[in-house]
């Protein structure tokens, strides 16, 4: 049962990811990306990571992609032809990479590594609590660094956007 779901989600993720770059209409690309986000969330649900699934949809589908669509619609690009002559190169690279991954997979037929903190433990305490604990204890330093970087990016964006306003007032 789990395998059926995994292969369904994986197939749709792969298919829609290709569509995102292959479709000519940017709005359709954004929609393909939306479908992909949902299936990634579905993959998280099959792994019993409901919190991640919900956050995936809230952040990526709910906020970031809406901003993309916003920009695409403001510029009102009906179709974008500039990047589509890269298709042969991209195809060649893609096929090469796929063969490499396949070769690696065939060569290293080792048993899958034992799962760390087991899924059952997460199901008992609730994976939201587990993620919170891990973020604020084991991974506290990387977490804080990530927040600092995001803060810097935010301030940078504001300064860039306000540049001409500051110059005109001086």
């Amino acid at each position: 049962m789990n395998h059926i779901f995994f292969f369904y989600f994986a197939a749709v993720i792969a298919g829609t990811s290709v569509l995102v770059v292959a479709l000519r209409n940017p709005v359709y690309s954004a929609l393909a990306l939306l479908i992909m986000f949902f299936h990634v969330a579905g993959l998280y649900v099959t792994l019993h990571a409901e919190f991640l699934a919900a956050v995936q949809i809230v952040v990526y589908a709910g906020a970031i992609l809406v901003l993309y669509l916003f920009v695409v619609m403001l510029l009102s690009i009906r179709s974008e032809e500039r990047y589509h002559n890269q298709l042969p190169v991209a195809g060649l690279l893609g096929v090469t990479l796929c063969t490499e991954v396949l070769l690696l997979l065939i060569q290293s037929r080792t048993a899958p590594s034992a799962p760390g903190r087991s899924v059952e433990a997460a199901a008992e305490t609730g994976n939201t609590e587990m993620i919170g604990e891990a973020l604020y204890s084991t991974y506290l330093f990387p977490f804080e660094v990530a927040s600092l970087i995001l803060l810097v990016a935010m301030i940078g964006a504001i300064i860039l956007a306000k540049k001409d306003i500051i110059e005109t007032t001086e």
Partner: protein
Amino acid sequence: MEIGLRLAVSLAQIAAVMGVVMLTVMVLTLAERKVLGWMQDRMGPMEVGPYGVLQPIADGLKLFFKEDIIPAGANRFLFTLAPILALVPAMIGFAVIPFGPSMTIELFGMQVKPFVISDINIGILYILAFASIGAYGIILGGWSSNSKYSLLGGLRSAAQVISYELNVGLAIVGVILLSGSLSLVKITEAQAGGFWNWFVIAMPFPQIFAFVVYVISSVAETNRVPFDLPEAESELVAGFFTEYSGMRFAFFFIAEYANMILVSCVAAALFLGGWNAPYPGTILGHLGLDALAWIENVVWFAAKVYFFLFLFFWLRATLPRLRYDQLMRFGWKVMLPIALGNIVLTAIAAYFFPR
């Protein structure tokens, strides 16, 4: 067999909840016109049926038989898809709303929770996730119509929904800190035992500021007056659904009302104790009729939801529309700092006075 039965019971529950929601939408269309009428010293609709009560059925029939027009130059695929994308997220959120006490009954040898379709442990996040998807219907509807009014309406809506969604999410965090759970069932149960336990006034830190931020932001998120800039009729004709007619228009219309009901349900469950009565226990329970106590709880939940729905109409009759820059400034410079400050203070209070 087991799976089939479970599926059948779930489908029956979903059908029941959908039926109640659609019925409430019908009641709301009439109630809105009647309440607005009374507030403006008019009668409201009076022609169809006694006292105009059959007006929603007449409206529904009219919309059903209207010609379905797709404007020239519109993107047919997205034009068709947009109303569905608006309606489905509005309906799907009701899956995690607890309408009544969390009891289990035996049905065909299975444990069934009659008043909540699915008690998932991230209930409130689930609702936030699908509420944010509802914006796609509006944006794509505006874009695919190939009309400048629709496009402007869609763009306004995108900016507005993103800005105010953030405030809704942050306002809820205080409640989550106090209850220690993301499940709406557990949040409601944490408020049992009288109105002084409702999170809007509960110790150690009353969520009254979060409540105000939530109510204002949810009005903005459902595109209602005074935040109805995406469909401002004086400047944008009808905003993002200018070009829609017939059943497609009806879909957008139902989605707006279903969203109103959904945010009212969430407000009732998070801040006003959900199905809990404002006194400890239930009167029917104290009288020894424990088997019927759920009726009282469901009635209390409905009363709270209808209070919020009435608030929507009340605001519409009272307030003028905001200007667009005022709307953005209000969202980011007033609502957001209040919501953030509430989180900090609630966290401190919850740390020193754990419940």
